[in-house]
């Protein structure tokens, strides 16, 4: 159980970084962006976004400032920092390597052994 959460958490962090890398977003915007990119495939518990956002900011990977949203309300906007950009890059590489490795393993046919 614990391990799954860790994996999910790590993934969520990565997705958030990716979402804000495309432009500053408020919390709700991050949620919408992730859902939009994933083609509504990914179900995220909405509230769990915030601990992740605060943690990433705490780690200095994203920064935030207060601004005005489309519906003219005060909202907090997050953007990627330089450290966040580096983190996203290395995470992406790591993920791709892992994914292709796993894919390679899973697509192995009996003849190839």
């Amino acid at each position: 159980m614990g391990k799954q959460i860790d994996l999910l958490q790590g993934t969520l962090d990565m997705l958030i970084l990716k979402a804000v890398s495309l432009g500053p977003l408020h919390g709700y915007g991050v949620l919408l962006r992730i859902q939009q990119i994933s083609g509504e495939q990914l179900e995220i518990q909405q509230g769990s976004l915030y601990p992740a956002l605060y943690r990433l900011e705490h780690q200095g990977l994203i920064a935030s400032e207060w601004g005005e949203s489309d519906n003219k309300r005060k909202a907090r906007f997050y953007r990627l920092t330089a450290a966040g950009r580096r983190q996203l890059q290395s995470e992406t590489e790591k993920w791709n390597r892992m994914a292709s490795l796993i894919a390679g393993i899973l697509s192995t046919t009996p003849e190839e052994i």
Partner: protein
Amino acid sequence: MSVLKRLRSWLTWMIKRPRLEREMETEVRFHIDSFAEDLIRSGVPEPEARRRARIEFGGIESHKDAVRASLGLRWWDELWADLRYALRMMRRNPGFTAVAVLSLALGVCANTTIFSAINALLFRRLPYQNNDRLVGLLNRSFSQRGIQGVSTGDLANWRKQNSVFDQIEVTSTFASKNVLVGPGGSERVGIQYLTPGLLGLLGVKPIVGRLLLNEDANPTNQGASNVVLSYTYWHRRYEDDPHILGKSFFMDTAMVTVVGVLQPGFDLWGTGDTDIYQPLSAEGAAAVDMTNRWLLAVARLKPGVKLEQAQSSMDVVARRLEQAYPDSNKDVGVKVQSLRETLFGWVGQILYPLFAAVAFVLLIACTNIANLMLSRASARRKEVGIRSALGASRFRLIRQMLTESVLLALLGGMLGLALSFWGTKAFVTLAPQWYPQAKEITMDGRVLAFTLAISILTGIAFGLAPALRASKTDLTDSLKEGGRSSSAGSRHRTRSIFVVVEVALALVLLVSAGLMMNTFLRVLHASPGFRTNRVLTLEFRLTGTKYLDVTPLDKTGFAVVTPQVEIFCRRVLEGIKALPGVDSVALIDWLPMSDRMDSPERGFTIAGRPPVLPGEKPNALFSAISLEYFRVMDIPLLRGRFPTEQDTESAPWVVVINDAMARKFWPNQDPIGQVLTLDTVPGEERPREVVGVVGNVKQFASRVDPNPEIYAPYQQQPKQSPSMFTETRLHKSLVVRTSSESKTLMDTVRKTVAEMDKQSPVFGINTVRNVVENSTTGERFYTQLLGSFAIVALLLAAIGIYGVISYSVVERSHEIGVRMALGAQSGQVLRLMLKEGLTLSALGVVIGLTASFAAVPLLSVFLYGVKPYDPLTWSLVSAFLMAVTLVATYLPGRRATQVDPMVALRHE
């Protein structure tokens, strides 16, 4: 970098806590509202949209909590909650809190006080320049234990032969006394001799004038020299008058000129009795003396030289000197220590056993509180059960309980720290006059850190066991209404073990204190070998060229004691004898057990014995006396006769010796008629016949066994006097046997002597009884300290037993009720409880006695007249401790007999 950034972010949020909460709230509301609006836009009716938005978001509070946790703020929140809870618990149990905080405060106070004392002397940096490189050099015997001072000859040789020191200087090891004849009259002052370079080496600065120079040391004219004053003396005597510079005074017979005043606070030995620093000449053949070892050398290591290197290098030098000067340097090695160790290391021997004692007190306090907490833990079983039922982990439970105990410990520590302010004052007040730097015992950062550390450690120490135990609660068991816990038995066992430990620790302290008290009583009541009842004493010091002719000094190296001394002494004896209320009167150089200001040994040769090496010459204490001395002091004649009127200067010279001397030098022989010659002034000293043997007296202190001693009539002494004996020749202690110890008589005696010579100071008027008692201040100090620690320990142990038995009565009330319902008498019930208490304390006593066997050797240096394993002391304190525990058991035990069987049985 990243860690720093996170710490900064954490700190920011810690400080801006309200803003964080506000922002989270705004953000969450914005999220939910936006989502709801989107839903409305897609056609969901408003109330339904708002409901769904809130549901989809999830638990707002738990998400917020996760945010706090992700910022590292959660443990703080928990700590804060724990602290608030702990405070509430304390308020709800004021009795428990008071007992715990008070017993801890006592323990911490004792520890902080003793640590402050240790810190002041043994940890704090000495206030000197190049402190890390300063060492003290003394001589030690290669073959035996034992330390002796340094001679000017040693200094000269070491300066020449060493390769490890930049600079070596010497100073006298105590302040010798002299008389300063000023415009306002004569006064006795403390003189510290030093080579002029010492002040510069230590980095001492003058506040007025200048430091001493090498030129100041050359005694050109009959010992005349330049001197510097200590700040306290200048302040006290001359009221900070800067015009003191250049003023000249007679120091006894020699002219001294003040060239400076030293900065405040400089006091090398820390005894506060140096008034004047006089330069010591260590250069030139005349000044170099190989045998007279009365100095301490202070040296600065060359940069990069370690203490051990210096020691081994000086060992080589010492061996070389042993070859070159077998007379004076046979078996003489050098001991190199840090300066602080040399000056104050010996105090550690006094303080460390006390430190062990106070550690015991604290340990007992800890055990006590652990016990109280264990008892309380049973009462809180339900609370713990609910907590763990609600999902608190065991770790979380332990943390919460430890927070409580550490908070308790910190409160106790704070109170203890406050108490130690008075504790330190008491220590300084009790400390004997010779205790160095007593006024420097103050709080500093190190003391505060120590107190904080022991507080936290004790909090964990006494909190851990109860916390571990309590957190192991079985859920269903503890939540059952009125359920009897299956672990009650083992909990009771733990408490019993704790009580046994407490009793054992308290006993070790009691044994130590008992031995010390025994020592003190013995020292107090030990016969000094002379009369102390209704004998007055005073001292005077003859001053001026009238009594000491210094003109021959430059030629012969000896001053001459004039006949005026004898004339004055006779006048004093006659004048005092004539006073009403005076029975008899006599004189001696220095009263036994008073502060003797010379090196009291004299070497001698016994006629008819083969010559010995100079280093192995026999020596004994020497005192010149007037004829009546033994009769005034009630010192018994064992053999032969006392000196008489016939033993004049021109008659054959005689001596009376004490029993110790007779036994040492003539073990199987009659010493009467034997002849010995003292090594005072060759040529003038005459052979002396032993005419009598008298009883021993304690010459230094009650606890020091009598040394061999030679008494001679004061008329039968050489006229010439080497400078080292001058003080003794001119100083006299008067002893007066009186019919009363009245103040007026003391006053009359003092005035009578003072009026005979206005220039010679008269001082130290006292009863002989007081002088003897003053020699026991060290024992009194130690007894008082150890005694008070032991009493606190006993009190704590008694509280511990009381607590356990009280609790046992409550816990067993059901059982007692059954017993009584079945016909048990109250006496039987009481006996049951007493048996429980006494079993515990007996077990504690047995273990404590065993532990004492290991502990008392630490004390043996302080004991006198009592063996460390003194059966009487051991059994008395054991019985005392048992009696106290009996009372502590009886009080709650009686309550057991008042149990109403009906109530007790219904209670279940």
